[in-house]
């Protein structure tokens, strides 16, 4: 597994996807900052300390970043088929489930990295805008929310990434599905009970964006756990397919 992770990391170095994902995070920040210029009751949104960090995390997690995470995961999996390197990997031999597992671990790391990068941008902007109003506890809480959101959102998207590994050329439909799946979270988030069950909004609950009681938190963790189990089941099917 260690070797596979190393190999995947080396492959990513040659790819532009990391830079493109980071560029998306920068653009999310810029766009949300633009929204912050909107006047509400005589004040700009962005004038309120902490608004920018909250808005960038929530808006980005609904509209842009889930699809980017699904894109990163599906790209890493599909490129072996596209570049016709799967045959060579099978000759080594490499177990397909281990290979996809290594790709998923790296995609999870990338997801956290993406959120950490977004945090750095939003935190730097907040420091410039409202340095005197920021408290260490608030910043640490935001850092926790961002990092947990990164990992939880990846877990919520993991079944889609795993499906891509099974479907040939399925990344197009996976992308649409990822966008619709995350976008539906906007409406599910309005329902008090469903928001703790639906995986995308459950990620918000586990990260601490939504206030929740212990049973609600456990429901959200269970929902994400089901997503992980579903992904493992799909990957198991992939393994059987290759073995047969």
């Amino acid at each position, binding site marked *: 597994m260690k070797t596979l992770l190393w190999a995947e990391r080396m492959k990513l170095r040659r790819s532009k996807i990391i830079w493109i994902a980071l560029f998306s995070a920068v653009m*999310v920040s810029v766009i949300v900052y633009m929204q912050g210029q909107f006047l509400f009751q005589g004040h700009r949104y962005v004038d309120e300390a902490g608004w920018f960090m909250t808005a960038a995390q929530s808006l980005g997690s609904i509209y842009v970043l889930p*699809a980017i995470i699904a*894109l990163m995961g599906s790209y890493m999996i599909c490129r072996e088929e596209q570049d016709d390197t799967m045959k060579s990997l099978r000759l080594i031999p490499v177990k397909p489930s281990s290979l996809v597992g290594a790709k998923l671990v790296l995609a999870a790391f990338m997801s956290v990295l993406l959120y950490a990068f977004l945090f750095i941008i939003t935190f730097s902007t907040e420091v410039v805008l409202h340095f005197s109003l920021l408290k260490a506890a608030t910043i640490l809480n935001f850092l926790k929310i961002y990092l947990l959101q990164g990992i939880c959102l990846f877990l919520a998207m993991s079944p889609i990434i795993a499906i891509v590994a099974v479907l040939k050329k399925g990344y197009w439909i996976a992308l*649409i599905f990822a966008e619709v799946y995350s*976008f539906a979270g906007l409406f599910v988030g309005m329902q008090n009970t469903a928001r703790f069950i639906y995986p995308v909004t459950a990620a918000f609950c586990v990260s601490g964006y939504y206030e929740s009681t212990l049973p609600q938190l456990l429901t959200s963790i269970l929902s994400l756990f089901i997503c992980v189990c579903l992904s493992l089941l799909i990957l198991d099917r992939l393994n059987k397919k290759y073995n047969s």
Partner: protein
Amino acid sequence: MLNLIQTEFMKLRRKNFIFLMMLSSLLMPLLAVFYFGAAKKADITPMQFYKWSAYSYTPWIILPVVLGILGTMLLYDENQNDMLKQLWIIPISKLEYFLSKFFIVFLYSVLFMMITAVCSMLAGILPGTIPFTADSVSYLFLKCLEIGALAPFAMLPVLAVAASQKGYILPICVTLVYTFLGFILLMVNMYVHPLSSMTAITIKDMPGVVMKQPVDLKSAFLCIGIWGVASIICADVTLKKRQ
């Protein structure tokens, strides 16, 4: 040009995913059923229902994302299968090649919005949430046709990016960011981004929509036009360079 369009249609027959992508047009009508069903309001007007199911998030988010992915798919698959070289050997004009792809995106967009209109009508009328009135239904279809016809022009910059790239990662990311930007700019300035301008045109005469300032149709069309022409020129230049 007609031959190219006919060829594009023949290629579509092999792409089943394109038709599966149409399913996303059902999302907002379905959500509207649940939303208005839970609200249990007795006085829901057809306009209120259709605003939710067809005039809001579908043209703001869902349709642009679907069109961006479709455009990328149409251009990327030809690169991936190494067919582009053969097309240049024939030879075909770069501009006509790009416009034939745009034509497919245009037809797909109109069809997508027509399906949204039919589903919205059925989702509202069949459960008895709203009454069937000829005025509201004809307005729904006309508005959806308008959105379906304008959206591909607003998505021309993404199609140009897809034409300039060999891969699909950048055009997809650009689609997501471009759509998000258009959605956010609706509240800031409607005449900078083509998608925001498209929304300005479509909501201009919509009953019940209150705007801070009157919509300036000239500026909105100008914005879409400038971005569209610039995109076509950029696509033509980059395709010629790549040859």
